[in-house]
Structures are given as C-alpha cells and as structure tokens.
C-alpha cells in the first residue's frame, strides 16, 4: 500500500544551547504512511518528538535525514516557495487557539485569512460566503464572525481554529493536541466534531495527543512514540487489547478508570534519572531505564522496529515472549 502521505526515515535534530552544545534527535528515523481519508493516531508524552514530527510534515522544521512524499511526490526538498502551493493541501490545528488567532482580528477575519493568502482570485463576497459556510460546518453561529477571540469560550476558539484550517479545503490536516487545553465537558464536543469532519470530508489526518483514550476514540491505527522513535504501531483494537511494548502498556495503565472502588494500577517506583536526559547515541533501548521487563540485552543493544503478528510493528527485544500482549500492571 502506498499512502497519501509517506514518511521514510525522517530525522529532525536540534542543537542544544549552552556549554555542552550537544545534538538531540527529536525525531529519529521515523517512517509512516497515512492513506487517503485515514486519521492516524500518534501517542506519546511531552518531549517524545510528536509535535516536531507534525511540524516536519508541514515543512516548519528542516529534516536532518529522510524523505516526505505527498501523493507520490517528494515534498521535503521543494523549498519554501514551492511548498507554499502545498499549504492549501496540508493544514494544521494546534493546541493553543490563542496562538493561532490574532487577538486584534475578528474571528471572521482570522478564518478568512488563509483564503486571502492561498486563494487570491477569490473576491470579498466569495470569501464571506466561504466563511459563513465553514463556520456553520464547525458549529459556530454566523454572528460570531464579527467577534474577537477574547469574547469566545475555549471550545468556540478551537472551532474557529479548525474552521481556519478547513477553509482552504485541505486534503490532510495535522492536529496537534487539539483538545488538551479544553475543559472535559467541552473536549468531547471537539473530538466529535473532528470525527464528523473526517467522515464527511474524507480528510486524511495525523491526530497527535498524549491521551490514548482520545486517540483510540478517533483513530483505527495508532503509533506510539517514545524519545523520538516509533516503538509500536498497531490497530486500535490490537494496541488496547494486546499491547506488545511495555511503554504502550504503561500508557494504557495511566488512562483513568472511573469505576467506583477501582484503584489506579500504578507501580510506586522511583523515577529514574535516565528519564530526564536524551542520551542520543546510547546503545541501550531508550526505555530500558524505566522498563519493568528490561534484561541485560536491553541495556546494550537498541531494539529496532520489527514486524510482529497481524502487520504490527514493535521495537522490543522481548515482544515475542508475550504474543498475547502485556497484561495490566498489578494493582498497587
């Protein structure tokens, strides 16, 4: 299968400031595909590189290695001017609506802005018609077009940001933590809206979040990222029902259960100091320091992403020992 979007060995490096001045691979040799109309989930914690990966797809950070192909064409080497033409096709929704909306511009003005830049042939009346239609699509009343960001609630702002991304009719949207800043009662509204938009528009997207329960709600295929690398790729059902990587298990255990009387399943273990550094060239498995299943081999040899059953991929030396998946951690 060849996807609408294909990443091959994408690597992004940052130079650390300060006296030590090392190089950190924020994204390290990541390959993935997103099919037309597919919403691919990407889960990981802060600092794992998921946001950088999303930005790399949109050419907002340069690649140190690897290739990105869109509809069969290579796009990572086209240069800023030619990438501009792709901006109509590739859009993004970020976590903080306030960072995407100019506080001095009306909502209607902000939503119409991409049209002015990317569809200059359209006249004012045409733009206004598009704005009205797109606000309706994301569930915003037409009179909100004349308001300013500070007059809207968090949920309304995020709807406006989604409208701004959709107004140029993109074919792929990178959504980076689009609901994390919202109240619980509003979060669901936006999750449901994104699911509906994807269904109705047949839009491809990469949905990035630290919340596995939300990703699982939206995406049939999920990638788990840890320290810049993909550690597991599986269908939603396989990932939830039979996680192969110990980190995936840990993420699953961290999703709260709302059972009365249920205790959270957490090992009260000390934090490992190794958790805090990104030792780029360590030969060890990056998860070994905090892995309850680590053996000597894990500390001397980094596991590669390998095919497992049912077309899954996992980067763990011991994954073959638990073909039925890792069971939840014992109650503690």
């Amino acid at each position, binding site marked *: 299968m060849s996807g609408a979007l294909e990443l091959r060995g994408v690597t992004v490096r940052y130079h650390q400031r300060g006296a030590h001045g090392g190089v950190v691979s924020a994204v390290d040799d990541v390959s993935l595909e997103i099919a037309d109309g597919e919403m691919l989930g990407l889960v990981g*914690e*802060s600092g794992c590189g998921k946001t950088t990966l999303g930005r790399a797809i949109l050419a907002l950070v340069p690649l140190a290695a690897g290739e990105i192909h869109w509809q069969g064409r290579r796009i990572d080497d086209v240069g800023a001017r030619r990438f501009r033409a792709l901006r109509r096709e590739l859009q993004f929704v970020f976590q903080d609506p306030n960072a995407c909306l100019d506080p001095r511009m009306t909502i209607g003005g902000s939503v119409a802005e991409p049209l002015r830049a990317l569809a200059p042939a359209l006249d004012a009346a045409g733009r206004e018609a598009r704005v009205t239609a797109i606000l309706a699509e994301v569930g915003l009343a037409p009179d909100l077009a004349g308001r300013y960001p500070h007059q809207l*609630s*968090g*949920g*309304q702002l995020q709807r406006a940001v989604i409208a701004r991304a959709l107004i140029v009719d993109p074919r792929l949207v990178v959504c980076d933590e689009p609901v994390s800043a919202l*109240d*619980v*009662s*509003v*979060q*669901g*509204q936006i*999750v*449901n809206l994104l*699911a509906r938009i994807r269904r109705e528009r047949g839009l491809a997207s990469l949905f990035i979040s*630290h*919340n*596995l*329960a*939300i990703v*699982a*709600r939206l995406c*049939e295929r999920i990638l788990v990222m840890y320290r810049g690398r993909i550690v597991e790729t599986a269908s*939603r059902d396989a990932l*939830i029902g039979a996680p192969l990587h110990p980190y995936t298990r*840990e*993420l*699953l*255990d*961290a*999703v*709260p*259960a*709302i*059972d*009365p*009387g*249920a*205790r*959270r399943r*957490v*090992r*009260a*273990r*000390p*934090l*490992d*100091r190794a*958790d*805090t550094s990104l030792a780029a060239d360590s030969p060890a498995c990056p998860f070994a320091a905090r892995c309850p299943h680590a053996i000597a081999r894990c500390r001397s040899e980094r596991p590669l992403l390998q095919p497992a059953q049912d077309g899954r991929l996992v980067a763990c030396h011991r994954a073959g020992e638990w073909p039925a998946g890792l069971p939840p951690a014992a109650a*503690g």
Partner: protein
Amino acid sequence: MALLEIRGLTVDFSGERRIRAVDHIDLSIEREERVAIVGESGSGKSQLLLACIGLLAANGRSAGSVRFDGAELIGAGDPAAGVRGRGIGFVFQDASGSLTPHRRIGDQLAEAAIAARGCERGAALAEALRMIERVRLPDARRCLAQYPHELSGGMRQRVAIAAALMSQPRLLFADEPTTALDVTVQAEVMTLIDELCRDLGMALLLVTHDIGVVAALADRIAVMYAGRIVECAAASAFLGDPRHPYSAGLLASVPTLADAHGTELRTIAGSPPAPGSAFTGCRFEPRCPRAAARCRAEDPPLAVHGRSTVACHFPLRGEGGT
C-alpha cells in the same frame, strides 16, 4: 469538630465590575479525610482554596467563615498566616512556582521545617533527606544539593510535595498537582500523595478538573459549578450514582478505553458561564438536558437525595450515570 470547617464562604473580585468567584460554600473536612473538589476552569475551585489560606490576589475579598481546628482563618489582618505552610501545607500545579530557583533544594526544604517548627539546621537537613527519600526521588543526597531547574517536571513536583510536608501539616491542599505532568507520571504522583496521606495521617483537599484523577483516591467528592457546590457525596456513591445532571455529564464525558470503538463521546452542550455572569435560576440550567421552567426561575438549594447532597430541582434517581 471537623478539622476544616468552611461556612458560607464567598469570594469577590473587584474591578470594572465585581466578579463573584465563590458563592456561599459550605464544606467540612474531617481528620485524615480525603476530599476532592472537581470543577471546570472558572468554577471557583482554586479561589476557594486560596481564600482558606489567605492567598487571594490583592483585589480579592473573602467573607464567611473558615475554621481550621477551631481557629478562624477569615477576617482582617491575615489570620491564616499562622497555619499557612504549617498546619496546612499546599502544593500547586506549577511546582517551579513554589520553589525558589536560586536556592538548593536541601536548603529550601530545611527552611520550611525551621520556620514552622523551629528545628535546628542540622536536624532540619536530616529531615529533608528523609523526606526526599520518602517522595521516592532517587539519589536523595545528590538531590538536596541540586537546584530546581536541574530536575524534570515530575521530580520537581515531588520536591514541592516534600517541601509542603516538611512542616508536618495535618491538612494538605493540592491544586491540580498533576495537571502539568505527563500521563504516566501523573498516576505516580497521585499514588504518592495517596500513600503519604495514609502514612502521615494527613487530611487532603484536592482540587482538579480531572475526575479521572480523583476517582482512585478521594473519600468524598464535591463538584463545583459557577462558584457553587452542586453535588457532594462519598466517592463510591458519586462515581456509581451521580445525582446532579452536571456530575453525570462530567463523568460520562471522560474518555475511557472501555468504549473506545468509534462511538461519539458523551458531551455537555454549551460551555461554562463566563466569570461574573448574573443568574436568576439554576446556574446549570442553560446546559441541562433536564431543565424545566422551575429551573429558570428558582435557584435550587443543596438538599439530600439518596446518598448525595445535590442542588437540583430534578435530580437523577439512581439511574447509573445516564
């Protein structure tokens, strides 16, 4: 007598117009009890906490009564100063905010014990070391000599918890203590707070927007909406059988893995009222699926329904969260 007794507590902020953040709250916490206040942003939950320990912003005013172990904390002349960081310890969302960036962690922890209990410095440092070990930070000795910026977010929050415990408080206030942390670290920090409360015989008042966080450790849960408590019940009763439509909606909208199969998330229509909104009837009425004419006209008082205390004219009746 309860350890903390809040009666008719009201918090107002002055400015272009007066904003009432907390509106006549009653709540008591028994010795060693763990109470969680759940509410969305702007519900007044954090201001309630801050009012109790006299840390409101300069334009904030509290009225009513808060008694800690019988002593009144509300009134002129900062009467809460004597319990703040002593009888009542506190941990906030942003750990770096409660730690001084330019002093070593050991000194900061020791200082808390010296200020609260007049410990001698050597003894205070020894205690700091034990406390760092207690919050499960590896290499405790080295940690004492470090500065806050040298630690990760999760480690800093553990240090902040350790600092709060140095004065041996009988009540710990924790405001969103895990919100800024990664999901796997969140669970660990909550487990740690749970353990410490048990081991030290400490009561807990936890404030959070995340019901998932409190489900595992609170004895009692109070839900705040627009400055009021709308439901209060034992955690087991609340989680299995919420009576207020808002509580039920909140519980249903927490995404879990159990029903992940592409179904729509349950939501509550609309959004919370803006701070300073005026109300005639029930504050939740505009978003409530059960609202009737009476709800628009008449503000429901808190009343006992089943195992809960609920402010609703038409509470749910044991319908299991639907």
